[in-house]
């Protein structure tokens, strides 16, 4: 091993990102940071003594124009000296992508070396030590995954940083060992055990396991297997992961006694079976739908919108990790849902991503209000920027376009942000070797091959951790950074291997790691045995249970027929992908886990998967309870003002975070890689008008030339406190209306349900549990009814059940924040190419129509979030009328008599018209009057424009449409006595945040 050296790389070009951070330090933290300079640091430890290290370093790190790479004796000349210097490095074991790439690059130049990367930050200005620390912690580093050292400039200059170069060494304090864990304990001790090991198990579950181990036959077998009487930690952890709420969805499967508004109590045997699965099965039968290829059984739903290709779609949430490390949490979230698609059927290719964020307002807290915020989660602005960057890198670096999404802001997401990430994939119905691509067919004796990155302690307990509410002591191991390059290589390789017929089944390593992926696949053959000692590791010392449950990223588990193992692993190696043969699938009825040839755990698959007693829960919902405000007693509390005049109200709403343009953020996503994005996020004469949905042309993906798919989303969480039943229907209707407005055929709709709920299990610390579960029941009832009415099957879904924060605020006072009960609905529908029109007005003189009844009721609207309103009920919804309307609308679109179409959502009718004006940079004169009519958010409505020449045809196609005005050439909006300049509307809409 040669001596380690340190390279410092300076950019010759000013970096705007640093200017932005300096600005934020001044703006948000009041730290007088005049400027910030970054120097990238690489610590290089050659594996063998290097003779010409300088030239290797120059080749890899230097650039004649961009980068100066300095080694020993590096000097910097500044106009004036920095006040402080900070060095940020990754903590041991945390994924270090720049270092990993640097190792590959150095190897190309002939130098084998181990590398660690970091950054030096020079802080200029009159800031003091406390200010430097604040900047370091809030802006430069996340101490969960990074280490930060701060020195005064003089101290820094004295450091032996080039002569004494140390790379972070990952040292696990323990040697690999297997413990036996007795469950013969008092309940209090069992509770403690569950907490200490982050098992997130209930007493009922722990007793269930204990009783199983008391069974004589079980003990006899364990004796024969020379396993201890008590469960080993490996076994206990497998139970914990497999039975976690995250993996098993126990609440949706529970037996619920629900007392409704009529005072009657009914028993619901699984919300999932009763409302979600049943809706789909009934709709499929009633409508004779033949295009549902696979629903609820696989990693994603598979539908057939095209003769030549199938589409699969999945939406996940990654809330808890995103609260602690917004960037890493969102990045691993998007890469994770991509793997769901890669692991769908025999593997699908991701063609589009979607993303929906629910955060506290970015302006929160204002100066001086920090102490009222929860301690633990990052501040809303940090979460917004980190999550956005994570989704940006996850999509862009994987070559997957982000085609649709939404930002929704509400103070109740200050405890846990909600991060929904979705992916659409494409697969040929039949593979080259004639196999049905939707069908995993695992054969006895197939080898268990783990593909992708090595295993580390990172991501241990992700599944159980996300099944707990957040507190200050959340485990850092649950946080990790994704590696898009490793995953892209793996994805390319797996799709190549799929077409070569090299494997028989595949699934991703997500929550629960190997314990979940192998545990699930083992059910196909009826058993599995693996040796964890064969797994590639990031560093030594990991115990078997850690290897079994680690959620280290970028891994898939594949079943490979013995005859193909050689070819499979050779191709992997050729593609720079690690693939390891770690065991075999059998029909032993058991999951046997070895570590270096020693049996460390053996579980009955039947007990593991089928024995868990159904959860019994109580729920009630008879009337809405007043919405609690966790910040009511503080400066943070919601501040509303008396309703102003129409102009003031419209401009205020257009500029509000929930409505204002997100273009700045969205354009950081590549939305058209793969050259198939037909309707892009922004369009119109200045390309800044909002689109209602993303539309993907299927021909570039092997589909028919006139065929496309629209994807959109919808939610209405502010309705939850008013009426959860309508909340579900508003969410579905908005998602449906978005895709229909963009050209989707309402008779080819498929839906995805993603529930994010506050803890709905009643307990001493959660007295409102029964009401929250009641809200969930009502939401499911509303969801079932609208799916049936629209004939729209649910093809996939997910739920996340503990979106609460229980901890302290900055003043050390107890604080509980529960997220708004949120159902996020994703809709996908078939589009006939040519049907899509933009949302922006096109020509002066065109007629403006409102499709759908005017509606009434301002409760839960964006208007009501800012201004005092009397209404506390909100608008109604007419399911039958809506479906008829959408069908007529779709026919009219295809006949070409509609020139522009935009759905009416946040902000109501007037905001929708203002957005149409922005898209076309045209004026409008409206006949609609009154705040309610102008700003209510009644569902089922679309604003369209029609040229005078097509008016007769349009009136015939959509008899129920109401003429509400005309597009004008003079740049203003005339409405209800107000005269609002187009320029003011555009400025307010483009304000952003």
């Amino acid at each position, binding site marked *: 091993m040669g001596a380690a050296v340190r390279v410092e790389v300076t950019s010759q070009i000013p970096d705007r990102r640093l200017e932005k951070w300096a600005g934020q330090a001044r703006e948000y933290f009041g730290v007088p940071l005049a400027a910030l300079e970054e120097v990238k640091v690489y610590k290089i430890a050659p594996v063998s003594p290097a003779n010409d290290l300088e030239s290797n370093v120059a080749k890899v790190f230097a650039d*004649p*124009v961009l*980068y100066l790479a300095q080694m020993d004796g590096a000097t910097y000349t500044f106009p004036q000296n920095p006040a402080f210097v900070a060095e940020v490095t990754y903590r041991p074991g945390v994924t270090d*992508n720049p270092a990993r790439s640097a190792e590959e690059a150095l190897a190309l*130049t002939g130098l084998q070396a181990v590398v660690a990367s970091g950054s030096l930050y020079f802080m200029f200005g009159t800031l003091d030590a406390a200010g430097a620390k604040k900047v370091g912690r809030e802006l430069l580093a996340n101490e969960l995954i990074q280490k930060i050292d701060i020195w005064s400039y003089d101290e820094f200059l004295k450091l032996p940083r080039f002569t004494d170069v140390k790379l972070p060494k990952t040292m696990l304090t323990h040697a690999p060992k297997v413990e036996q864990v007795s469950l013969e304990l008092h309940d209090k001790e069992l509770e403690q055990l569950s907490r200490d090991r982050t098992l997130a198990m209930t007493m009922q579950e722990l007793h269930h396991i204990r009783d199983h181990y008391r069974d004589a036959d079980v003990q006899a077998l364990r004796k024969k297997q020379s396993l201890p009487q008590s469960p080993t930690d490996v076994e206990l952890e497998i139970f914990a992961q497999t039975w976690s709420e995250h993996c098993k969805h126990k609440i949706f499967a529970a037996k619920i006694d629900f007392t409704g508004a009529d005072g009657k109590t009914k028993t619901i045997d699984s919300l999932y079976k009763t409302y979600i699965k049943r809706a789909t099965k009934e709709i499929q039968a009633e409508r004779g739908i033949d295009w549902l290829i696979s629903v609820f059984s696989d990693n994603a739903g598979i539908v057939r919108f095209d003769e030549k290709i199938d589409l699969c779609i999945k939406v996940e949430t990654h809330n808890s990790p995103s609260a602690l490390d917004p960037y890493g949490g969102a990045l691993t979230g998007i890469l994770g849902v991509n793997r769901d698609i890669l692991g769908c059927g025999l593997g699908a290719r991701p063609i589009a991503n979607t993303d929906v964020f629910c955060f506290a307002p970015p302006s929160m807290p204002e100066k001086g209000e920090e102490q009222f915020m929860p301690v633990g989660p990052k501040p809303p602005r940090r979460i917004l920027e980190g999550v956005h960057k994570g989704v940006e890198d996850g999509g862009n670096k994987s070559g997957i376009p982000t085609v649709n999404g939404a930002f929704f802001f509400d103070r109740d997401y200050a405890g846990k942000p909600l991060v929904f990430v979705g992916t659409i994939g494409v697969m040929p119905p039949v593979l080259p070797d004639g196999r049905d691509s939707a069908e995993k067919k695992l054969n006895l004796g197939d080898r268990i091959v783990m593909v992708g990155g090595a295993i580390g302690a990172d991501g241990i307990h992700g599944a159980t951790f996300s099944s707990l509410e957040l507190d200050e002591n959340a485990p850092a191991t649950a946080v990790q950074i994704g590696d898009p390059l490793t995953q892209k290589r793996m994805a390319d390789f797996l799709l190549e291997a799929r077409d070569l017929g090299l494997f028989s089944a595949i699934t991703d390593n997500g929550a629960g790691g190997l314990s979940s992926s192998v545990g699930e696949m083992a059910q196909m053959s009826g058993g599995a045995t693996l040796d964890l000692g064969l797994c590639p590791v990031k560093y030594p010392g990991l115990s078997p249970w850690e290897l079994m449950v680690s959620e280290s990223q970028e891994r898939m588990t594949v079943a490979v027929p013995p005859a193909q193992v050689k070819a499979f692993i050779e191709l992997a190696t050729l593609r720079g992908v690690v693939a390891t043969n770690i065991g075999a699938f059998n029909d032993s009825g058991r999951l046997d886990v070895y570590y270096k040839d020693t049996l460390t755990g053996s579980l009955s698959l039947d007990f593991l998967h089928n024995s868990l007693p159904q959860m019994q829960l109580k729920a009630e919902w008879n009337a809405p309870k007043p919405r609690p405000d966790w910040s009511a007693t503080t400066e943070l509390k919601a501040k509303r003002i008396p309703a102003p005049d129409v102009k003031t109200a419209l401009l205020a709403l257009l500029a509000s975070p929930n409505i204002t343009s997100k273009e700045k953020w969205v354009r950081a996503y*590549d939305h058209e890689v793969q*050259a198939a994005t*037909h309707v892009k996020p922004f369009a119109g004469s200045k390309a800044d008008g909002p689109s209602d949905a993303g539309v993907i042309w299927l021909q570039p993906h092997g589909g028919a030339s006139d065929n496309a798919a629209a994807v959109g989303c919808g939610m209405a969480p502010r309705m939850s406190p008013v009426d959860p039943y309508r909340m579900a229907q508003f969410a579905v209707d908005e998602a449906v209306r978005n895709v229909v407005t963009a050209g989707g055929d309402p008779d080819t709709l498929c839906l995805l349900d993603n529930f994010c709920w506050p803890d709905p299990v009643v307990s001493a610390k959660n007295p409102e549990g029964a009401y929250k579960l009641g809200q969930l029941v009502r939401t499911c009832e509303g969801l079932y009814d609208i799916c049936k009415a629209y004939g729209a099957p649910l093809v996939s879904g997910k739920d996340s059940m503990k979106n609460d924060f229980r901890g302290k605020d900055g003043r050390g006072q107890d604080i509980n924040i529960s997220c708004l009960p949120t159902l996020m609905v994703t809709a996908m529908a078939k589009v006939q190419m040519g049907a899509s029109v933009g949302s922006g007005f096109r020509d002066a003189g065109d007629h403006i129509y409102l499709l759908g009844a005017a509606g009434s009721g301002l409760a839960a609207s964006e208007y009501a979030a800012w201004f005092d309103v009397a209404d506390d009920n909100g608008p109604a919804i007419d399911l039958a009328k809506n479906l008829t309307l959408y069908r007529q609308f779709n026919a009219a679109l295809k006949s070409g008599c509609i020139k522009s179409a935009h759905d009416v959502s946040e902000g109501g009718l007037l905001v929708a018209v203002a957005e149409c004006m922005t898209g076309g940079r045209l004026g409008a004169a409206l006949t609609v009057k009154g705040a309610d009519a102008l700003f209510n958010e009644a569902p089922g409505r679309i604003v369209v424009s029609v040229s005078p020449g097509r008016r007769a045809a349009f009136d015939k196609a959509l008899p129920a449409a109401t003429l509400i005005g005309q597009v004008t050439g003079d740049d203003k909006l005339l409405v209800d006595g107000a005269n609002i300049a187009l320029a003011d509307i555009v400025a307010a809409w483009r304000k952003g945040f």
Partner: protein
Amino acid sequence: MANKPLFIVVCGDGINCERETAFALEHAGGQAQTVHVNDLIAAPEMLKTADGLAIPGGFSFGDELGSGQILALKIRHKLGDKFFKMVEAKKPVIGICNGFQVLVKLGLLPYPDAPERILALAANEQGGFINRWVTLDVNAKSVCQWTKGLDKTQIELPIRHGEGRIAFKKGEEQKEYQALIDQGLVPLTYTEDVNGSYGRIAALTDASGMVLGLMPHPEAFMFSETYRNTHARDVAKGDGALIFDNMLRVLKGEQSHERRAG
């Protein structure tokens, strides 16, 4: 020249536009063989038999150490002369977005024979990745064979990059820029400042005119179906298709047709 010139389209290591780039070349009347960079290293003779080469867009090596840097190192150290010979032989080479960054890092643009590089593709001035459509002026005086005789003076294409800003060696900007213009090595420029690129340079070629590197994505605008607006534009061919057609015409020895009057 074969009536269907064969282009090698490089993929792997984080490149991600190989499918649409291969499609674009085939749509223009060529053949495209998509080859993983590791397979190319294993059988470099492919480069001898091929008529041309494309390095598509993407995020090779995750853009670590600067976009294009590591893929350029890989090509230089693993393919070396076998790769450079292809350029010396004046076979057409196109580098799109990340591919452009690779060609620049390899020193192939704008001056293949220069001892040291005079320019680089730096981080966008606004400091981040941006996906938007741009209008480009086509330089009729450029020696670029890919754009010569395009029957349009302006084309529209999307850009999708975080490091697309042409930056010259400090102090030599104006001189070097003028030299590029005088030699006709700047085939495309943005009509507005989109990323701080010096002189709004969007693309570069070499003296032979056979090597084209450009930040915008021609393969993303082959048909009106992927135009920036779903309506208002119904063309038989997207502006990107014109560039590929043009090179295929050159390879097939056809006259690049006269610019239409007006």
